[in-house]
């Protein structure tokens, strides 16, 4: 037998890239989280204490914010599934008129910042709301109020059910038609087939969607802040403890944040555990063909789909209408007739909002894409200790609520040696951290579709590793990368919970400016800015659909 040589790891170009990325993660993610943890266990004098956690768990009020968040998240997840799964089923199995447009509208519903929806719903169904007043003027009944639990759930469900729709649609597209035919052939049809065949086949996607919806509703902070009134959820509590008017306690905010992370981590693990029970792969040769149906069923399905989209789009439509109403010169009172006053006022007072949005969003997207492509390549093609670590760390932001990311960054970068608070840089860093897990996931999915042998072909023809990567791999990923980039762009420009903690008057973005106008009670300009934002997202979405060409959407 011959001597076995231990293969040494050469310092090749991908190892250097891997180490550099790991360093970036340590600097901008691990370190801030560590500082957050540290600050949750020290008192004002800097001594070690668990007092903040004790305070949280011993007072009924704080516990109730946690319980409220849970109630909201569970209700939102439940209703989103209840609405989204049938919608996806109808959409993919039956012929629906105008289905392409319908899909765009469904996706569009999910793409506005939730607090804008909350605000518009208040305008419609609040105490002075248009619908409330109209109904109560005609009928002798009291319309149930939108504030509190009901309102939060309504707003979040109308925004989050599209995620369920997209995930389940993706799963349905991968089911082979023959499976449905086989079940029909064996006498299992209709509802029976839905529960016995279709649902189990979609289970991995349903669980993934449920997790995403749960996380988003748990972390959402703008909606309960505006529409919750007395109903406090704990992202709001974190925010109040951090920047609140009454009692500011950074260490306590940090402690609540730590609790929040632990809870979301637990939910994440639970979901992974459940998802492991539903693992299988389907070889789909023939995708499901949409069937034409007739009569009352057909009408009901159309009614269901279009009514749902109409209700979900209502806030945006109403704000669109409001943005063109005439206002007083201050912008806070509507007067008779229509004008572009709101736009004039909005653009004058927040002149930097659009450039800021373009700049922060643009740079963030470019960096996110650049890093995500490199990370996905390392994770898929170069498995080792370093890249596995990067893989795990890169998923951290997925389970960390946005406001917590904001607080962790402020704690870390408000002192020497790196003072970044108040700068555009910290906003960009925050957006990158928030968005990168999703883009990495989608890039990984794309890369896994590309056989390794294509790269080996490049190398065997004499090309270097980097040359092969940029000439072969990246061009093959191109469409996926661009569509991933557009999605990132849309989520970044509608982001609120992190940026609200980090912004200063120099770094106000479109979304922030809407929030500021809403809080100040200047409704016209708020509606105008919201309409501009909707325009941005709509255009981006249309470009996305053109580029992705019917491929699946990974949110």
């Amino acid at each position, binding site marked *: *037998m*011959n*001597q*076995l*040589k231990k*293969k040494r790891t050469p310092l090749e170009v991908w190892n250097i890239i891997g180490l550099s990325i790991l360093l970036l993660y340590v600097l901008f993610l691990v370190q801030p989280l560590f500082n957050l943890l540290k600050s949750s266990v020290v008192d004002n004098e800097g001594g070690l204490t668990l007092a903040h956690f004790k305070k949280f768990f011993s007072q009924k009020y704080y516990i109730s914010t946690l319980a409220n968040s849970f109630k909201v998240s569970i209700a939102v997840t439940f209703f989103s599934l209840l609405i989204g799964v049938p919608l996806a089923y109808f959409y993919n199995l039956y012929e629906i008129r105008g289905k392409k447009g319908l899909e765009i509208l469904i996706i569009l519903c999910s793409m506005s910042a939730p607090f804008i929806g909350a605000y518009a719903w208040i305008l419609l169904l609040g105490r002075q709301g248009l619908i409330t007043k109209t109904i109560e003027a005609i009928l002798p009944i009291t319309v149930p109020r939108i504030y509190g639990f009901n309102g939060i759930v309504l707003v979040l469900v109308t925004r989050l059910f599209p995620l369920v729709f997209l995930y389940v649609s993706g799963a349905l597209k991968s089911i082979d038609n023959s499976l449905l035919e086989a079940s029909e052939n064996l006498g299992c049809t209709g509802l029976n087939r839905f529960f016995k065949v279709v649902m189990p086949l979609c289970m991995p996607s349903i669980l993934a969607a449920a997790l995403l919806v749960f996380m988003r509703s748990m972390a959402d902070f703008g909606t309960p802040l505006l529409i919750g009134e007395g109903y406090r959820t704990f992202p709001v509590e974190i925010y109040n403890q951090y920047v609140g008017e009454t009692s500011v306690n950074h260490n306590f905010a940090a402690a609540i944040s730590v609790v929040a992370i632990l809870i979301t981590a637990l939910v994440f693990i639970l979901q992974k555990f459940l998802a492991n029970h539903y693992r299988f792969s389907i070889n789909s040769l023939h995708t499901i063909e949409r069937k034409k149906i007739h009569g009352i069923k057909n009408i009901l399905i159309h009614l269901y789909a279009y009514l749902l989209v109409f209700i979900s789009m209502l806030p945006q439509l109403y704000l669109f209408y409001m943005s063109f109403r005439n206002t007083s010169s201050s912008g806070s009172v509507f007067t008779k007739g229509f004008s572009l006053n709101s736009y004039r006022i909005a653009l004058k007072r927040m002149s930097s909002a659009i450039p800021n949005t373009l700049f922060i969003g643009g740079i963030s997207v470019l960096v996110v894409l650049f890093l995500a492509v490199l990370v996905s390549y390392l994770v898929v093609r170069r498995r080792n200790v370093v890249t596995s670590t990067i893989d795990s760390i890169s998923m951290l932001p997925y389970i960390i609520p946005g406001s917590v990311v904001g607080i962790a960054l402020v704690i870390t970068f408000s002192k020497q040696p790196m003072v970044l608070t108040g700068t555009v840089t910290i906003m960009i860093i925050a957006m990158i951290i928030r968005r990168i897990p999703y883009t990495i996931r989608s890039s990984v999915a794309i890369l896994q579709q590309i*056989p390794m*042998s*294509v790269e*080996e*072909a*490049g*190398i*065997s*023809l*004499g*090309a*270097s590793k980097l*040359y092969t990567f940029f000439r*072969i791999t990246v*061009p*093959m990923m*191109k469409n996926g990368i661009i569509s991933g980039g557009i999605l990132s762009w849309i989520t970044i420009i509608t982001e609120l919970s992190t940026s609200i903690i980090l912004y200063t008057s120099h770094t106000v973005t479109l979304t922030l400016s809407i929030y500021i106008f809403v809080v100040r009670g200047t409704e016209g300009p708020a509606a105008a800015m919201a309409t501009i934002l909707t325009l941005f997202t709509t255009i981006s979405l249309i470009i996305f659909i053109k580029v992705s060409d019917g491929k699946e959407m990974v949110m």
Partner: protein
Amino acid sequence: MSVAITIRNAVKIYGKNIVIPDLSVEIKEGEFFTLLGPSGCGKTTLLRMIAGFNTIEGGEFYFGDKLVNELNPAKRNIGMVFQNYAIFPHLTVRQNVAFGLRTRKLSTEEIRTRTDEFLELMQISEYADRLPEKLSGGQQQRVALARALVIQPDVLLMDEPLSNLDAKLRVEMRSVIKEIQNKLNITTIYVTHDQEEAMAVSDRIAVMNRGVIQQIGSPQVLYQRPANKFVAGFIGKTNIITRALVPQENTSKLLISDSYAIDMPVIHHQERKQVLVSIRPEDFQIVEDTEGMAATVNDSIFLGLMTNYFVTLETGERADIIQESTINSIYSKGSTIRLQVNVEKINVFSEDGAKNLLLEE
């Protein structure tokens, strides 16, 4: 220029799994050499070690006199054809073929003429400006071959290149491959699990099992004088029966049945022992004679030129027999026939099946 390849004591280990324990082989310059074996036998692993895509845990790999163990795959000057072709989908056929020439920084003019030459050779000039997704499997295969050959590699490596094609195209493409290889006279290492394909294209074949080369030889040698039971069963069909070998003066007698024994003059043994006898279906003869072993016909399939019989021997074993079809002479189910064997063509293995007693000494 074409080179000889020498591999000495190659070792491949994945984790704790020893895939190739100790393998040596010499491949001659300009030879069409095939690695043949069932899936998981290590043939693709070995090919990828030669290409430089797998690490080498032990042993030496030489291209000519040059040790290539640590040489970057990009610098080995190999042409490789992958199982899934690995055509670059975002480049046109021409750009695919020219890729390797570009990385070699040749002049635009030279790239053009050489690309044209190979597009012509592989008869794909008319698709030069199309994207590969528009091409059929066979055409993609031609692009992959042109791309691998245009760089004038020292060695051509092919990893199950025909396995994604339908049966008819497979036969067509294997003659294309053989023809091109003959024309360019390039050292070629070809991996396949299809023994018929291997026999059709190869100068020599190495039959592999569990990381070990069982036998190296021409298709004819492998078929007629397999080195062990595994090769006998893997190349073509055979019937293996256990029988006694009895020493005689200067010869040995093989007891096929109580009434039928044959002389094996080439085998000399001192004592009686059990051996494995490998008889291919065509090496049985159905005879009207009284001498021979009795068998009962269970079923028969008429294949046209040949007729296939499934029989139970008088000793209880089942056997496959193939005979040239004759008019009016299909033996019916349940009928009893008498069999003799073609002494020249049968093979006798040691009881454990590890060696062919006819190849000893």
